[in-house]
C-alpha cells in the first residue's frame, strides 16, 4: 500500500525539490516550532536534566558494551516467560518469520502498532506480497498508508500533511479498505481523530494477529515496553490472540531498574509531555490476559555493522525520540522525504550510513546533509554526539573513493594542495599567484562581504558548485608570510598590506 524509499535520489537533488514546495515548508515550520516549544517547557521543569541525560546515555552504553551477554539473558528470560524467540540476520529473514507465524494462524491480516523496525525492514510490502494485509493503526501511519505516501518524521510520520490534506485522504481512501469516513467530515483534528477511531475499531475487534516493535527490551526480566499515545498500541498488544514483536538488538537494557531514566527522558524529548498517555509492558504470556501466543523477533539488519564502528557505535543508543529532527535547521526546511529513509533528520544522516555502509550515492550523500551546528547533540536525551559521527562518516565516504580509477575533483584539489604546502618555495609562488588573482578579482567584484572585504564572483569549472550558494572572499593581495618578511614581523611599522 504505502510506497518505498527504494530509488530515491541523493540528498541534494531531493532537498532542492522539497525546498520548492511552499506548502510543505509551511507545514513543517509550524509543526517543528510547536514541538520544540513544548519540549523546551517540560525539559526546563527538570532541574537535573543533564544528570538524567548522563544516566540515560549510561544505561544504553552499558547495554551495548556487553550486548551479547544481555541478548542471551533476554532470550532466556523471554523463553522462561512463555515467549518464542526468533533471530533474524536481515530484513528478508525477519519478514519471512512474521509471515510464517501469521499464516500458521490461518490469518490473512495483521494489525500493527507503529514501529520503526518494521518500517525499516519493509514488512508491510513483504506481507502484502505474501497475501497478508497489514493495517497501520497509529493515526499518522494510517494517514501515510491511506495516502500511499512515505513517512517523513520518526514520531509523526505525516508531519508534512496539514488538516485539509488529511481530510481529503480520509474521504477518498477509507471506504476502499473498511469503514468509510463519515459524511460531512470536517478538518477539525478532533473530528479526524474520531473518524480514525471508527474506521479502525472493527479491525481491532476482529484481529487475530498483531505486530509491534518495542521501545525497550529488559534483559533480566524478559519485559518488552511499548510507549504510545493513542491506545492503538494497547489494542494491538491486548486484544489479538497472537502477538509478534520485531525488536532491534540495540533495544536491550540490562535491568528493570534501568527503565527509570529512559521513561523520564523519552516522553519529554519526544512529544514534549511529562509522560505519554500509555505505556504497556509485558513479559511473555500472562494466562487469561492478552495474547496467549507471543513471538519476539530479534533483528540485526546492519546493527552489528554499526556496533563495530568505534565512533558510530553511540548511534545505537538512539531511543527514536526525534528531538534531533525538530531542532535541525536542515530538517525543518527540507522535511523527511529528502533523506530517502525511514530514519530522517540528523539521526538518519548517521544511522543509515552506519547500518548500510556508504557504497551507494544516496547513503553517501547523507553525512553532508548537515551544517554541523550541534543543536541535535544538545537535545539528544542519550547524548549521541551526532556532529562528530557525521564528520567521521564524511571521512568514511572519502575513504570509500580512495581507489577510484577517476578521482573526484575534490581529491585532485586536495592532492594539489598537499603538493603545494609541502614546499616553502612552491607555497610562496602560489601565494604570489593568489595575491595577483585577489587584486584582479577585487577590482571586478560586485559583492562586498561584511567588514568591507571584496568577494570573488562565481568561479568557473568544478568549483562553480561551491560558489553557487556561498560568497568566496577574494584572496588578500599580500600573504601573511610576505607581510611578515616585509615588515620584519610587524616591527618596522607598515600595518597596511601593500597593493589595492
Amino acid at each position, binding site marked *: 500500500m504505502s510506497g518505498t524509499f527504494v530509488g530515491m535520489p541523493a540528498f541534494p537533488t531531493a532537498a532542492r525539490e522539497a525546498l520548492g514546495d511552499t506548502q510543505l515548508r509551511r*507545514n513543517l515550520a509550524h509543526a517543528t516550532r510547536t514541538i520544540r516549544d513544548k519540549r523546551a517547557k517540560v525539559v526546563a521543569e527538570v*532541574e*537535573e536534566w543533564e*544528570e538524567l541525560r548522563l*544516566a540515560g546515555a*549510561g544505561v544504553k*552504553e*552499558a547495554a551495548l*558494551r*556487553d*550486548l*551479547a551477554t544481555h*541478548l542471551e539473558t533476554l532470550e532466556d528470560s523471554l523463553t522462561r516467560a512463555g515467549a518464542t524467540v*526468533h*533471530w533474524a540476520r536481515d530484513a528478508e*529473514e525477519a519478514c519471512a518469520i512474521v509471515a510464517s507465524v501469521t499464516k500458521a494462524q490461518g490469518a490473512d491480516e495483521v494489525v500493527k502498532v507503529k514501529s520503526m523496525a518494521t518500517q525499516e525492514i519493509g514488512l508491510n510490502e513483504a506481507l502484502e506480497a505474501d497475501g497478508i494485509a497489514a493495517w497501520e*493503526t497509529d493515526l*499518522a501511519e494510517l*494517514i501515510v498508508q491511506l495516502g500511499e505516501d512515505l513517512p517523513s518524521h520518526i514520531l*509523526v510520520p*505525516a*508531519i508534512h500533511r496539514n*488538516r485539509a490534506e*488529511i481530510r481529503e485522504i480520509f474521504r477518498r481512501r477509507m471506504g476502499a479498505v473498511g469503514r468509510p469516513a463519515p459524511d460531512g467530515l470536517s478538518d477539525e483534528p478532533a473530528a*479526524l*481523530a*474520531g473518524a480514525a*477511531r471508527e474506521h479502525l*475499531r472493527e479491525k*481491532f475487534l476482529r484481529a487475530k494477529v498483531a505486530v509491534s516493535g518495542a521501545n525497550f527490551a529488559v534483559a533480566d*526480566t524478559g*519485559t518488552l515496553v511499548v510507549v504510545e*499515545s*493513542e491506545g492503538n498500541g*494497547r*489494542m494491538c*498488544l*491486548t*486484544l489479538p490472540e497472537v502477538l509478534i514483536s520485531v525488536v532491534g538488538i540495540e533495544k536491550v537494557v540490562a535491568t*528493570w531498574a*534501568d*527503565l*527509570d531514566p529512559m521513561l523520564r527522558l523519552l516522553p519529554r524529548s519526544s512529544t514534549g*509531555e*511529562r*509522560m*505519554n*498517555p*500509555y*505505556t*504497556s*509492558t509485558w*513479559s511473555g504470556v*500472562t494466562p*487469561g*490476559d492478552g495474547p496467549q501466543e507471543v513471538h519476539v523477533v*530479534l533483528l540485526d539488519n546492519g546493527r*552489528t*555493522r554499526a*556496533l563495530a564502528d568505534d565512533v558510530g557505535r553511540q548511534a545505537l543508543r538512539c531511543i527514536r525520540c526525534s528531538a534531533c529532527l525538530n531542532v535541525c535547521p536542515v530538517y525543518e526546511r527540507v522535511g523527511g522525504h529528502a533523506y530517502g529513509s525511514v530514519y530522517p533528520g540528523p539521526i538518519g544522516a548517521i544511522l543509515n550510513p552506519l547500518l548500510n555502509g556508504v557504497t551507494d550515492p544516496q547513503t553517501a550523500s547523507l553525512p553532508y546533509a548537515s551544517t554541523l551546528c550541534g543543536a541535535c547533540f544538545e537535545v539528544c536525551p542519550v547524548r549521541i554526539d551526532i556532529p562528530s559521527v557525521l564528520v567521521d562518516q564524511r571521512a568514511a565516504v572519502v575513504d570509500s573513493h580512495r581507489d577510484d580509477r577517476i578521482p573526484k575533483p575534490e581529491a585532485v584539489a586536495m592532492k594539489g594542495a598537499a603538493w603545494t604546502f609541502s614546499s616553502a618555495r612552491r607555497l610562496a609562488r602560489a601565494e604570489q599567484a593568489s595575491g595577483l588573482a585577489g587584486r584582479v578579482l577585487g577590482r571586478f567584484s560586485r559583492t562586498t562581504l561584511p567588514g568591507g572585504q571584496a568577494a570573488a564572483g562565481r568561479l568557473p569549472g568544478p568549483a562553480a558548485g561551491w560558489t553557487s550558494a556561498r560568497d568566496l572572499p577574494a584572496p588578500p593581495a599580500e600573504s601573511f608570510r610576505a607581510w611578515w618578511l616585509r615588515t620584519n614581523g610587524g616591527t618596522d611599522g607598515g600595518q597596511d598590506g601593500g597593493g589595492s
Partner: protein
Amino acid sequence: MSARDEILAKVRSALDGVEPAYAVPPAPRVPDRGDLAALFVERVEDYRAVVTRCAAPDLAGVVAQVLDGARAVVPPGLDLDLPGAVTDDGFTAYELDRFDAVVTRARVGIAETGTIVLDHAPDQGRRAISLVPDLHVCIVDAGQVVADVPDAIALLDPARPLTWISGPSATSDIELDRVEGVHGPRTLHVVLVS
C-alpha cells in the same frame, strides 16, 4: 550457522577490544515537592482528565454518581457495591465494546508525571476491560501515590503486565495539536480516596 549464533558471533567480534564493564551514573532524584496527593491531582488534571477527591466511606456513592447510569463492567476483585455493574466474565472484545464504562482500582500513582499504573491484579482486571469501554473510572488510594518514576518502578513487578496511564487517549499527529480521544478511553475519571 544459525541466525542466532551468527548474530551473537558478529556482536562479539564487533566489540572485540571494547571493555564490557561500564559504570552507569545514577539517575537524579526529584526534589521534595511537598503534598504528593495535591501534586498528583494537579498533574492528572493537566492532561484534561477529571479528578474527584473523596473519603473512603463515600466511595461507592461517588463512583455511582460519576457513572450516572452508564453500563459498566468491573473486575472480579473490585470490592465495591455498584448497583447495575457487571463483573467481567471473560467477555470477548465485541462484548466489551457494548459497555460504556469500566471501574478499576490501580497499583500505584506517580505525582510528578500524573501517571496511574495498573498491574492488572484482580481489583483491576485483565487489560482488555480497562481499554475497550469509552469511560475509565480509576480509583486510586492517596497512600498509593509516590513521588516519581523510580519509586514506581521499584514497587512494580515486571512479571505482571503493566499499563501506565497518563490522561485520556490522545494524539498530536495532526499538525502536532493535542487532541484527546482516539482508541483508548476518551474520558479518564480518577477518584482519589483519602
